[in-house]
């Protein structure tokens, strides 16, 4: 300490007395720095611009169609005449799906994560489960659709009502379960061991520590994962078609056992019509509604997350 401080002034004089093996100029290094700053800025911009163009395009096409008949669009059923077509059953179906899917997947996902992270001992079985959960997160959604068709629609048909909202929601819940589990485990794992030990050292049981400290601390992370997963679920089309969501429907869903359609399926059905009125105006309007639902659900979840963060 002392030595270096007495030597320092001498070194900073005219001639450095060091080994002289360092390059004096840092100009090129700053050059690289600026170059990469520009590069990553461009990467950000490219993504944003493409997204913005897409959004503007959809909004420009869709908003006029909604404004043309703002009430009717939200309260009408699908129709063979584009002017009378509305999105009411699809919007309701998607909201039902969103709620039911969250209801099934959140407790199951968080519960499984707590078990795997806090209770399970580290053996080959848990490691196998672990690897498979990561793999499940990457399985194409249509496979989940086939699974849902086999189990929820056919096998459990008498209970789920066959091609019902319940079957659809259960299928979507399976689809996003791995994502919620992984996100929650990640959040639990990032909590320092010292928190658990502090709890145990006071004579707390494992569940008391989980309940009072770990879950509140992991909740923001778990909610973030759930938001992303639910956003994915609400935009899914393929598995819902497989488990029997209707493409044309003349009634609104009345309960979990009711038949249904969903926003992405409605959009898909409009875009595949030949008439330009369907193809452009209605499709875009449907997408705008879908995005609005997503945005609202996400804002609600973020609000919830911030609230839990402040409390903990």
């Amino acid at each position, binding site marked *: 300490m002392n030595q270096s401080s007495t030597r320092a002034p001498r070194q900073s004089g005219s001639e450095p007395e060091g080994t002289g093996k360092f390059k004096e100029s840092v100009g090129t290094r700053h050059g690289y720095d600026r170059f990469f700053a520009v590069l990553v800025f461009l990467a950000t911009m490219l993504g944003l611009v493409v997204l913005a163009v897409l959004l503007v395009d959809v909004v420009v096409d869709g908003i006029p169609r909604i404004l043309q008949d703002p009430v009717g669009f939200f309260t009408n059923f699908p129709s063979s005449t584009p002017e009378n077509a509305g999105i009411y059953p699809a919007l309701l179906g998607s909201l039902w799906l969103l709620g039911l899917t969250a209801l099934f997947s959140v407790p199951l996902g968080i519960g499984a994560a707590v078990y795997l992270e806090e209770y399970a001992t580290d053996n080959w079985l848990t490691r196998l489960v672990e690897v498979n959960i990561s793999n499940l997160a990457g399985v194409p959604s249509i496979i989940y659709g086939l699974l849902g068709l086999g189990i929820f629609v056919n096998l459990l048909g008498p209970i789920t009502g066959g091609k019902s909202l319940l079957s659809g929601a259960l299928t979507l819940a399976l689809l996003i379960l791995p994502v919620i589990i992984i996100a929650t485990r990640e959040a639990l794992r990032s909590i320092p061991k010292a928190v658990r030990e502090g709890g145990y*050292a006071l004579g707390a*049981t494992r569940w008391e520590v989980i309940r009072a400290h770990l879950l*509140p601390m992991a909740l923001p992370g778990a909610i973030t994962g759930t938001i992303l997963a639910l956003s994915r679920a609400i935009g899914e089309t393929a598995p819902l078609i497989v488990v029997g969501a209707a493409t044309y429907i003349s009634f609104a869903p009345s309960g979990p056992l009711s038949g249904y359609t969903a926003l992405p399926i409605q959009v898909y059905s409009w875009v595949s019509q030949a008439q330009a009125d369907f193809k452009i105006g209605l499709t875009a309007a449907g997408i705008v509604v879908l995005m609005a639902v997503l945005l609202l659900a996400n804002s609600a979840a973020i609000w919830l997350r911030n609230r839990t963060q402040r409390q903990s």
Partner: protein
Amino acid sequence: MDSEKTRIREGRRVGAPDNRYDVRQKAGGPSSNAGGSPVLGMKIENLSAFYGSFKAVTDVSMDIQANKVTALIGPSGCGKSTYIRCLNRMHEVIPSARAEGCVMLGDQDIYAKNTDPVNIRRRIGMVFQKPNPFSKSIYENVAWGARINGYRGDMDELVERSLRQAALWDEVKDRLKQSGYGLSGGQQQRLCIARTLAVEPEVILMDEPASALDPVSTQKIEDTMADLKQRYTVVIVTHNMQQAARISDFTGFFYIENMGDPGRLWEFDETEKMFSNPDRRETEDYVTGRFG
């Protein structure tokens, strides 16, 4: 007691309750050791501690006297933390870690089959090297442990008493509702001491409680400790020789003779003897700062 009996503990169910403790509870009420019933000491016999197949500490025998401060010193890595964690069954919290030997609290074997570690950890509290307050309010930090252990008295009073004992009350009394994270490191450590005191343990284990603290906070914690031994049995790990000499009545020196061996209790005696005239040369070298 009943809820403790049914509580699930690491993997298996709680066995028979600890009778001694039942008697104490009935005799003295929840605040029995604040109320003056005799404080318990500990007796350790042939304790060895393992991490998987690695033996970190071997064959430690030691009497820990009631109402005294026992200091554990020794070079880094010789197993002081491992050993002190065995004294309240915190060692086994680490996956694959286990202990062998006998640890008695009073005349109860804390490693007996029917002893519940959850109950033991309430009776033998622990303060860690790094302050680890909960991400809750200051009040909740202190109250939580008492609440889960079924404390039925006046919680406000308990929180204030515990914070006073830990010499923190004056600094936090106006912001009990604020987060424990908002305190300085030294205050956080005293908060951790307070929450340990709030569950009214009989023994308090401290693993380098002042190692990350400034001299003023250290002084406050040392003052607290001098107070604590009126009511508790205290065991403290420290790297600070002056601190060990100042505050402890007994000192244990842990040492590893050859690299790769497990740590041993090299010498254990009254602090005065250990620091003036120890029996073994390694102890003398260590306490006089010639190595370690």
